[in-house]
């Protein structure tokens, strides 16, 4: 009985987190994940002679992989968030250690969701990407990026965009979205190295 209630609670919590992500309540999501999952990641990394800094990095990357899965609809209902982030962290940490030590004998056999394995490193946000993006937003402007985030990341309708950003009507929002996207596309076109980095 008690166990069942426990697992029901976990499922409800998971659903609440997924909903919060979709609603853009990132601070709430991040504190919950930090509180519930980070201690386990830290423990994992420290137990395997990693440092606190490495644990922090691994956890951040794993959270981003999780977000990406949710955003693209690849995060299946049957996954539990805790297990997913832990599995991804394990995998990321083993890749990191292998890179660092240049040897293959440090291998976790983990219960990582199959689909998360293949291109895991392409799912994280590297520092090089962060720098490029930061720069790009600087050129594009905050408001443009905010608008594009509503339409592309959250896939909001123009009506919802109007409410969030105070456009006069849906047509205005639509035109603004179009113009911002065209500007961004122009920037991509003018900068072929971006194409190479963000093609996948």
């Amino acid at each position, binding site marked *: 009985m008690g166990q069942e209630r426990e697992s029901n609670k976990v499922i409800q919590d998971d659903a609440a987190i997924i909903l919060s992500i979709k609603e853009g309540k990132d601070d709430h999501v991040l504190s919950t994940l930090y509180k519930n999952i980070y201690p386990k990641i830290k423990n994992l990394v420290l137990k395997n002679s990693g440092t606190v800094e490495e644990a922090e990095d691994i956890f951040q990357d794993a959270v981003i992989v999780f977000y990406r899965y949710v955003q693209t609809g690849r995060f299946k209902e049957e996954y539990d968030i805790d297990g997913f982030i832990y599995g991804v962290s394990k995998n990321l940490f083993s890749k990191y250690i292998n890179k660092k030590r240049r040897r293959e004998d440090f291998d976790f056999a983990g219960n990582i969701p199959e689909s998360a394995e293949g291109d895991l490193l392409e799912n994280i946000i590297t520092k090089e990407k962060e720098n490029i993006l930061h720069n790009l937003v600087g050129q594009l402007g905050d408001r443009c990026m905010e608008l594009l985030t509503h339409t592309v*990341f959250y896939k909001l309708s123009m009506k919802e965009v109007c409410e969030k950003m105070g456009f006069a009507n849906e047509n205005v929002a639509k035109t603004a979205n179009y113009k911002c996207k065209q500007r961004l596309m122009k920037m991509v076109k003018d900068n072929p190295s971006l194409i190479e980095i963000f093609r996948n």
Partner: protein
Amino acid sequence: MTGLDKYELIDQYLEGTLSVQEQARFDSMLSSDPALAEEVELQRIANSLIVENKLANIKTRLRENHFGKQKPSSDPRSGTKGWIIGSVLVLLSAIALFFILHNKKPESKALLPTQPNETLAEKQPEVKPLPSEADKNKPMDTTSSAAAAPVPEEKKKVTAIPEVKKEENKTPSGKSEMQIQKIADVEITGNCYLTFSRNITINPSCAGRSSGSIAIDPKGISGGTMPYEIFINGNKLTNPYIYSNVPAGKYLMTVKDAGRSCTDSLEISVPVKKFCKE
């Protein structure tokens, strides 16, 4: 078909919301129209940039809210410590502005050593809370930070900015994860005053391969007489000014103005990329 119609059609195609027939028609248009194919690709990459940017933002927020760290690339709007980064950025822009103004009046060159220091001294109180936090940053975290670097050493405040500029200018090589080198408003040395106020985009190369590139935005050059000629290691670049398929290493960029009376050079390092597909 207007631009907006075309854009929306591509959007639906990328979202996978076209009907089977529409999809088939679009596919056949794609195979016969390279310009359309290019546009689809650009739109797809633009979408991917928007998603990546949001994710990068979330990562920054997680880092700032829970690990108490600031990064040069963090979004000033997010996180409780955003204002500190903001103020450092303001400070840097003030100095950048100085260099721009200064470049327009070469005769005022003598003012160079004193004026930026004064600007810096005025702004000091704003950056004080940072050092203890910044000291905790491990090397991995301090990659090439023009914003964070001046902070840790309080005693060196006054000279910190010029040093950082020099470092950015000369040795980006230690910063393996850096791709866009912010070589903003740094005067490059030569026989006259050319100024570079835009980014040079550097793509690291996988070790042992020639997969790096350097892209230069000529609009960022000022001083002398336009048009400029841009060379890297003596090879003249033509529009779009990209020097690609190069191994990691140091490269010398040279800019000559029309008539070649004015020449400036800048050393650029192409770092080794960390994660490469085997």
